[in-house]
């Protein structure tokens, strides 16, 4: 296609189609609505179905069921909608449903400022549902990454049979950039692991806790079952504590054990640096500018940009902390991811948060000033 001037929301829709999405359901909400518009045009062109649901709960219900019937599905919303997705996210986790959930974050809480950006849903995403199972969440910083990470989110959803979040922001979703999507390198598409026609189908078959069960579509070669209740590997309700525990351990283990494989980070380390900026999302771009300016002044400083937020890329973060005495964590919230960094930082290392939630971006100058780089 060549160079285009695109907003992040369109890049998300295009990344989704590149991953062969063939089902979308969503409900209008600023600043995510244009994803719904793009998908309603693009999905039928690929032979699939896209629908504006009656609300966010129905969007999730349609998507979960369509995914279990063999479709590759995505839905998109913003903070208020994510709140309504919450209960069904638990269902999707428990039913081991591959799907992609896009959150174009905006200023909250509640209605907040519909047309203004924020990144206030970071810990909410981690603990999104009753039961507290681990989630996978990717955070793009640019329009190009919105495309790439949406595509990758589909691969992760298939590989780990779980809902995967794309945590973007109004500042990416409806900001336009010059970009060439075809120039972005993508990994091969991960195909859904299916149960053979002649094999017996257990909806949640695993030998090791970390094993991801193969699927069979509703309406396919086997009788399929799905349930919101505590269940065993056959998806029949169970009340046996040891079976319930095994299933809970399985949902967590398959994601936790793969944390290093899921980890996507961008390292820009400088020899002898004792200051490190850890950032993600749109604010990582302010961090990059702050690092560039500090180096121009002769400072030694490293940068770690996280594209995977959940599970926490602990190995990459810990290794970036080598020799570091101060870590600056700029965020478009009041310090949500800083909690994870503080947890991982060795004793004696100062962790300085630079956060605000007033609808404006954290600027490079604010990082320099509050982070003590001047």
């Amino acid at each position: 296609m060549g160079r285009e001037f695109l907003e992040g929301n369109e890049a998300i829709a295009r990344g989704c189609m590149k991953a062969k999405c063939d089902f979308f359901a969503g409900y209008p909400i600023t600043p995510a609505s244009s994803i719904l518009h793009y998908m309603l045009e693009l999905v039928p062109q690929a032979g699939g179905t896209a629908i504006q649901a009656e609300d966010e709960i129905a969007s999730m219900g349609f998507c979960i069921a369509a995914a279990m019937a063999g479709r590759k599905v995505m839905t998109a919303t913003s903070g208020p909608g994510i709140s309504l997705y919450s209960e069904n996210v638990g269902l999707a986790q428990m039913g081991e449903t591959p799907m992609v959930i896009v959150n174009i974050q905006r200023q909250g809480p509640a209605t907040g400022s519909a047309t203004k950006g924020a990144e206030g849903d970071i810990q909410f995403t981690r603990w999104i549902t009753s039961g507290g199972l681990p989630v996978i969440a990717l955070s793009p910083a640019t329009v190009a990454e919105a495309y790439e990470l949406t595509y990758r989110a589909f691969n992760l959803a298939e590989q780990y049979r779980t809902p995967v979040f794309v945590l973007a922001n109004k500042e990416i979703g409806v900001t336009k950039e010059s970009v060439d999507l075809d120039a972005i390198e993508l990994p091969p598409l991960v195909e859904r692991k299916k149960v053979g026609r002649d094999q017996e189908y257990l909806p949640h078959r695993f030998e090791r806790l970390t094993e991801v069960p193969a699927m069979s579509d509703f309406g396919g070669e086997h009788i399929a079952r799905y349930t919101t209740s505590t269940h065993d590997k056959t998806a029949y309700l169970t009340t046996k504590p040891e079976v319930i525990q095994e299933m809970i351990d399985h949902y967590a283990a398959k994601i936790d054990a793969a944390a290093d494989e899921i980890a996507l980070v961008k390292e820009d380390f400088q020899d002898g640096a004792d200051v490190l900026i850890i950032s993600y999302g749109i604010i990582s771009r302010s961090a990059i500018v702050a690092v560039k300016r500090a180096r121009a002044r002769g400072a030694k400083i490293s940068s770690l940009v996280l594209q995977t937020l959940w599970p926490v890329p602990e190995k990459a973060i810990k290794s970036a902390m080598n020799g570091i005495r101060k870590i600056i964590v700029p965020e478009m919230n009041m310090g949500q991811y800083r909690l994870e960094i503080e947890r991982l930082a060795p004793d004696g290392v100062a962790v300085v948060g630079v956060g605000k939630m007033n609808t404006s971006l954290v600027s490079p100058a604010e990082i320099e000033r509050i982070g003590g780089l001047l």
Partner: protein
Amino acid sequence: MSTTEVAATRYTTYMTDKIGPLPFCPGCGHHMIIKSLDKALVKLQLDPKKVVIVTDIGCIGLSDRYFTTNAFHGLHGRSITYACGLKLARPELTVITLKGDGGCGIGGTHLLNVARRNIGITLIVGNNFNYGMTGGQHSVTTPTDGVTSTTPWGNVEGPMDLCGTAVAAGASWVYRATMFDKDLADVMARAIEQPGFAMLDVWELCTAYYSPRNRLKKADLLELIKSYGLEVGLLADKPRPEYSVHYREAYEAGKSVIKRKIPIEKEYGNSVEKQTGIVIAGSAGQKIKSTATLFAEASMLSGLEATQKDDYPITVMTGHSLAEVIVSPDRIEYTAIESPDYFLVISEDGLKRARPRIEGLPETCTLYADESLELPETKAKVVRLPWAETAKKIDRLSVAVVALATVLQDTGLFPVEAFASAISKFQKAKIAEINVKAAEAGAKLAVG
């Protein structure tokens, strides 16, 4: 499997006793509903792999696992959404939803919308006037004066007519039955055979809570229906195209209008040596955002990188509209503009929103403003222009084009021709014609 073997397969039941007997109280109407559904499936001889029983929470939600078909058991009140998802994903499936009156309350919007959309699922409601699973609380169908755990002095709320509601919402097939109807299985088979949405509302007894508390017996059920002035039997039979069929037809009929995208290749040169920030402040409805996009696309036609970040209220045609465009020979990181190089103010709305920023502009910035505006004190170099007057002679909606063309001509960032070229490439011919004129007129205003 050979054809003869397939023909020989005859299903005598769609239920399994593998997990024991049905879990319902003695005399509960759910027994009749489940057994009738089994008989209906036997009558229809459907492939169990192509049938899905969908349930949610409530006593009747326990029943999906007693069937040998596919089974989907979801969140309280949301079974219709899963059923619709399955049917939309695979229209060839027979999708049957079993739901209680409680589920119809919490998921009321899904009932309205599946009826309106005519998605071809079958909805069977086990309507026993209260929540049996959570302790006999009142539901949307509890009769007025009915005693439940949450209406200890009698229900002061009115009951909802589920069938009437579905009919009003446009359901194509609606039937009211009771658990005692001799032809219940046949009626269910008819409901399942409907290509569009079909709803069967089965009034029944809850022998644990509602019936004993309100002395409701078999004979009283029909009396209750009569007392409301309601009918039993077929209440709507108005077939229309099923959703997925209609969806595909609409797409096939409309797809010829799909526009193909055009890549942006370098056609012009530029004089931009460093990252340059341009803010344009005007009113919603003045095409600020779309014109800023054309400007950015023109910069790309001139070989530059660009970003555009907008600021606008939730309203569409009123209030301010600001666009911040950065053009740069290199990759752009921070997308907001810390220190604008060029600041354009087109209208009073834009001025009002941008006033604090204008007051803080440095002397390195040039502030271009419509001559009608009263500007605050600023260190920026000020240039005043008759933009609104000029645009009025062409089209008042072209004022942003006029303004940006003036600035391009004045600064020489990249050629005005690139701007005109972007307009011609990306806008509809009629609008492009007007805007190309506006760009020429805007360029003429430049002071140099």
